[in-house]
């Protein structure tokens, strides 16, 4: 045990690289749906935390969309005070076990870390890995950092949608003493965390535990309740003092090329929903929702959703999984770790290939996907080199399944039944002000339904800002902080 009375001598781990994390070997893991990275031991987490030099400017804090005090929690881990470190994180982020696993750290906290000097072979602090360790530590030791719940205010709040944005808002508002009810259209809570992100990347048990914790805090969950259909927003608005909309991105985009409605063409959402939410990989013995026996499959796109689809497909034991992307490696939007894992697992990457047609096998199902090969041209306005077709270079991939993963628009369910709610005309997203307030006074919104497809931590950040604003609104009638108060505005959306 560290003696807190004496100032501990500063110990630093001078290793240039992160403490490696053990993983299931690629050839083993493609045979199962178990998690791939196995997490740190206490010693490994301790060693990694000691790499942080507690630099003066602490750019990592600003790199985190919710502003976790990273050096402070790393320091506590360096002192082996895991519970204290966890408390520190939970001040800002109530789902560390999840964010540690799914945040694109290389674009956020770790990207700006002072240690990060790729040209000198030096890696940033393994912030995400230590964060994950703490989340897991809490679970293994059954540590519930029970938030203090303020005395009941007598105010009621409805949360529509139970993704990370809705869950964060619900948890924060419950802590502030409001009576919170969460409405979810599907039969399980969690949004993309449940139906999208696969088990091998984020075990569902983590989510279930967090949701059970919220139930213990008095949050009520109503499943199978598509607001807008089951009850109009107007009615919810009248029944509750304030409402938060976190209905997420939903509507999958298709390419608009010939053959897209052939049998065997799925949106990534459908493919992942069949396998994750409905447990299709256990069909027919363990679950009733069928997934076809796949022999050869092409996944179109290169974001997290595409990597998840490709790696999920791989676990259904086909002969080959192609990944087809029209740009180059540099532009692939997925987390680096996922790209890396996909490569290790033998996904066949085909960059600079743009699908132009899906070809019928003669029986109304997919026979092949035809692609135009591309090369990189001049940089466009954004400075990225634009892919242009190489004339005459057409390539067919013989496949029986195609998964399209090129992004998604806002969930249409609520919007369709509430045309009065102000929306961005072009994108269909809900419009909010700095305090997450929509065009209806007591209705707030956040997450992908506002930003378009973004990230878990951004959705959570917005849920939190909205919860603060809603709390002020409930107590004073004004969502903006009083002049002498500080208050966050919505995290940068771009």
């Amino acid at each position, binding site marked *: 045990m560290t003696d807190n009375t004496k100032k501990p001598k500063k110990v630093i781990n001078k290793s240039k690289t992160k403490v490696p994390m053990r993983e299931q070997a690629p050839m083993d893991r493609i045979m199962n749906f178990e998690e791939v990275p196995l997490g740190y031991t206490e010693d490994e987490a301790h060693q990694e935390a000691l790499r942080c030099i507690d630099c003066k400017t602490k750019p990592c804090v600003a790199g985190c969309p919710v502003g976790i005090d990273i050096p402070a929690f790393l320091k506590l881990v360096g002192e082996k005070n895991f519970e204290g470190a966890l408390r520190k994180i939970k001040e800002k982020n109530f789902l560390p076990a999840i964010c540690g696993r799914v945040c694109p750290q290389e674009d956020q906290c770790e990207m700006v870390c002072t240690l990060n000097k790729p040209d000198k072979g030096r890696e940033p602090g393994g912030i995400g890995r230590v964060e994950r360790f703490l989340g897991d530590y809490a679970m293994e030791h059954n540590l519930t950092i029970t938030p203090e719940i303020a005395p009941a205010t007598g105010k009621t709040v409805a949360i529509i949608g139970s993704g990370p944005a809705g869950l964060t808002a619900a948890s924060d508002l419950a802590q502030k003493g409001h009576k919170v009810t969460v409405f979810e*259209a599907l039969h399980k809570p969690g949004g993309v965390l449940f139906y999208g992100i696969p088990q091998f990347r984020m075990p569902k048990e983590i989510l279930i535990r967090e949701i059970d914790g919220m139930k213990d805090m008095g949050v009520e969950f109503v499943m199978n309740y*598509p607001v807008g*259909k089951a009850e109009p927003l107007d009615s919810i608005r009248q029944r509750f003092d304030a409402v938060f909309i976190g209905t997420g991105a939903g*509507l999958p985009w298709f390419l608009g090329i010939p053959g897209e409605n052939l*049998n065997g063409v799925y949106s990534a959402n*459908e493919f992942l929903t069949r396998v994750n939410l*409905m*447990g299709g990989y256990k069909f*027919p013995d363990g679950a009733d929702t*069928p997934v076809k026996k796949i022999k050869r499959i092409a996944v179109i796109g290169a974001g997290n959703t595409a990597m998840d689809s490709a790696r999920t497909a791989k676990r259904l034991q086909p002969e080959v999984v192609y990944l087809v992307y029209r740009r180059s490696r540099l532009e692939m939007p997925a987390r680096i770790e996922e790209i890396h894992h996909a490569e290790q697992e033998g996904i066949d990457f085909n960059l600079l290939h743009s699908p132009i047609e899906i070809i019928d096998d003669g029986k109304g199902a997919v026979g092949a996907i035809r692609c135009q090969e591309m090369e990189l041209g001049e940089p466009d306005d954004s400075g990225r080199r634009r892919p242009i077709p190489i004339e005459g270079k057409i390539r067919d991939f013989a496949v029986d399944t195609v998964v399209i993963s090129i992004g998604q628009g806002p969930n249409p369910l609520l919007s369709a039944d509430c045309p009065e709610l102000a929306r961005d005309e072009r994108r269909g997203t809900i419009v909010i002000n700095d305090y997450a307030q929509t065009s209806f006074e007591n209705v707030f919104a956040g997450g992908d339904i506002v930003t378009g497809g973004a990230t878990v931590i951004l959705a959570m950040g917005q849920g939190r800002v909205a919860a603060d604003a809603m709390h002020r609104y409930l107590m004073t009638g004004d969502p903006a902080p009083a002049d002498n108060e500080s208050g966050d505005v919505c995290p940068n959306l771009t």
Partner: protein
Amino acid sequence: MGNKIIYTKELAPKTKLFEIEADHIAKRGRAGQFIILRVCDEGERIPLTIANRNPDKGTITLVFQEVGKTTEMLGQLAVGDEILDLAGPLGKATEIPTGKTVVCVGGGIGNAVVWPQVQALKEAGNKVIAILGARTKELLILEEEIMSLADMTITTTDDGSYGRKGMVTHALEDLIEEGEKVDEVITIGPVVMMKFVCKATEPHGIPTQASLNPIMVDGTGMCGACRVTVGGKTRFACVEGPEFDGHAVDFDELITRLAYYQPEERASADNYHRCRMEEAADNLGNHG
């Protein structure tokens, strides 16, 4: 949890009617809308039309045919049992005209969907002619219920065992030829039947709504499994439908898409039958 079954009735072999407690769906549901249910953990989500509603009592009626594992499991439930998950109402409601002559053409289980529509159309002051078809007398459902509402009801069976012999399309064509001024047709039933109903009305320029039944997963517009081609455009039936302009629907594509999982569904049903037989055998063993 709610969703308690309070009444059941067998309408025809393998066709059942359930009345279920579901207050908000009973209050908000409209003709043309459906629910999605799940019977067990790891079970499939399946869509069924809201065949009737009793807002005062807070109940809805579902009519379903046992065609595969999920509907068979549902059929095993009895009064007092609860349905695990029941979400709705989903989909767009039928657009109900006023003061028109509307022909509703139902086939097989489709009669269950016609029922609330005939009711809604009558309430809005339309003249309603129902044409109800079945393969054979035994399979004809809801004739009395619909007959008591519609201005006129024509019944057909393919084998002539009851009503007119022949298909619903013939009855419809005759009706039009006899000079009945038909403003609109609504059709619900097997896809092939709907296709021919639409073919029959097209030359006469009679607007025809077809209620489509593509395979669905979430029913909330999130997955695209339910996509159908209407007028050359891809539409999501669960949020933009299930009713579409029948003259613009690509029925052949829908037929192909509906058949995609047949081998898997059969495997699942066989598996289920085997389990139930083993269970029955076990029970015999235990009691014997």
